[in-house]
């Protein structure tokens, strides 16, 4: 079946299409040189790209797009686990709008998102700047700061839950050493949100630092030379050369971190231990994902859970829209 690969030792290019035997029946007569082989060849060239991308799009259709739409439909129904849907229109959404748990979860998702993302990206930027110097042990530092990325959410959270324990945790011991009173990291609102953000920050700072580092290394050296000829200090160079040059990358990491923060689930759940599913004893760190899980799998109302999922999608579309607007404006500025 295979069309042969013709060895061309002398380097002369072979004819564009392999010569083909005369078509036995001549049914598929085409103008010009043809026959089943070249038909097959042309079909191969035309169709194969679609064959190659098909696995992705089929998988996405089955496990991404269809469930997404079906979730949207479920959100307009009352559905119990294992029951049949009953049409309710927008009731699940109006219920959410009047539910204090929903607004609490939305606000928690936002505050934890900010506390975990902003310091994380700023520290990553600083680390990348340090790693961009000529260094001994550069490879070691890079791998070391990436080690948290290899640690799973579950493992990292279980370790940090011990370190943050109010009675015997090492972090309170450390604070005590500085003369600060012990903090109830799990049961008070802001300490709990900070502790969860610390876990997220610990896992992702090194990863983002390496992304920034790569972008920084692509900044042309002459920009720095010009700046230092103008007498710009190193800090000044960082602010007015480095940061503007890697702006697209910064933008990219902001988007990725925002998406991650919107879906936060494992860290608050495992940090809360036995009350983790409800986001702490007073829901003080219940995120949208946790609320969705609670609605769907504890209360058993899949319709409400679906509505929360779609609210999350709407939030991300909003973020995506802002991203598209800003990056278009950036591109216009650069005159592409």
């Amino acid at each position, binding site marked *: 079946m295979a069309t042969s*690969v013709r060895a061309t030792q002398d380097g002369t290019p072979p004819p564009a299409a392999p010569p083909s035997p005369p078509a036995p029946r001549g049914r598929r007569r085409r103008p010009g040189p043809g026959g089943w082989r070249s038909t097959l060849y042309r079909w191969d060239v035309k169709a194969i790209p679609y064959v190659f991308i098909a696995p992705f799009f089929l998988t996405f259709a089955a496990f991404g797009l269809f469930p997404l739409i079906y979730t949207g439909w479920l959100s307009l129904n009352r559905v119990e686990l294992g029951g049949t849907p009953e049409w309710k229109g927008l009731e699940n959404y109006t219920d959410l709008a009047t539910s204090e748990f929903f607004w609490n979860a939305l606000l928690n998702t936002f505050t934890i998102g900010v506390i975990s993302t902003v310091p994380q990206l700023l520290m990553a930027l600083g680390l990348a700047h340090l790693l961009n110097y000529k260094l001994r042990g550069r490879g070691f530092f890079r791998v070391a700061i990436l080690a948290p990325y290899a640690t799973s959410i579950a493992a990292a959270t279980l370790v940090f*839950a011990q370190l943050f324990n109010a009675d015997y945790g090492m972090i309170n011991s450390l604070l005590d050493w500085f003369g600060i009173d012990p903090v109830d990291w799990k049961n008070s609102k802001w300490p709990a949100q900070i502790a969860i953000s610390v876990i997220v920050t610990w896992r992702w700072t090194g990863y983002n630092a390496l992304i920034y580092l790569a972008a920084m290394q692509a900044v042309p050296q002459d920009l720095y030379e010009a700046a230092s000829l103008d007498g710009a200090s190193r800090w000044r160079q960082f602010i007015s050369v480095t940061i503007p040059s890697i702006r697209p990358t910064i933008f990219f990491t902001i988007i990725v971190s925002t998406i991650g923060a919107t879906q936060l689930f494992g860290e608050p759940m495992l940090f809360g231990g036995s009350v983790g599913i409800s986001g702490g004893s007073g829901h003080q760190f219940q995120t949208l994902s946790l609320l969705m899980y609670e609605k769907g799998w504890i209360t058993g109302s899949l319709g409400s859970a679906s509505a929360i999922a779609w609210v999350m999608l709407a939030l991300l579309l909003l973020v995506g829209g802002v991203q598209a607007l800003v990056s278009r404006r950036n591109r216009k500025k650069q005159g592409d």
Partner: protein
Amino acid sequence: MARTLDTTPAVEPRTAGERPARRRFRQTAGRQHHAGPLTYVLLIVATVVSLFPLYWNVVAASHTGDRVVQAPAPLLPGSRLLDNLSFAWDQVDMGEALINTTVVAGLVAVSTVLFSTLAGFAFAKLPFKGRGMLLSLVVATMTIPPQLSVIPLYQIITDLGWFDQLQSVVLPSLVAAFGVFFMRQFLVEALPVELVEAARMDGAHSLRIIWHVVFPVARPAMAVLGMLVFVQAWNDFFWPFIALTPDGNPTLQVALAGLGAGNHTVDHAIVLTGALISTVPLLLVFAFLGKHIVGGITAGAVKS
């Protein structure tokens, strides 16, 4: 023909490995300042902060549960590591979870790399109608969180009798948008279109081109993608937590969630031994291949 393609110099500059990265570094940052002592101090602090929780995980897993919850917390390893390991292995079935996780992450990594390379090649080098639009679609799907699909998927796997079966976590992850995009970005620059055209001129059909032209060029990126996907699948939490149960057929993460919720024991040394079992294999991978993973992350990011 394939032989000569293997060694085409065009492959060299884009490899994610150590040597080209260093060369590039010298070129672009060669005249940059040497690090001062403050830089080293700050980097050492960052290293300690990064590694200390992992170190303390080992410490906690080597003490008794009573000692772990006693103030001040232990700072040096104790002698109970092997006892804790064997308890976690036998009583909590971490061994089974380890095998399950290896199977899941392995299958997901192999299939994602294979399908991503095919799709990435098509998007990078093959002309077809709707290519730009479809590529944007691939990128857009990356922003859809798993929360949007878990409810219907849960119903489907329950109907199929796949609840608590490994295929329910493998099948949805067979290929990922990130992988397609990653391979596309690599092949756009690494694979000269002349190579593909020359092979076509020779009458090679597409599978032959994939095997003799694309795979040899893409190999370094495929290896990096494989590692990244393996790590991701190994650590995946949300969907496995819904689709599997800690006492049935769990992956390590699901088993850990059960341990953390106090399913088997409230012995914190055992809980952290479980965490250690789930982390050590990946840390070993990082210790040996970390440089390549670092190279892969940075290579993928520059172009995104």
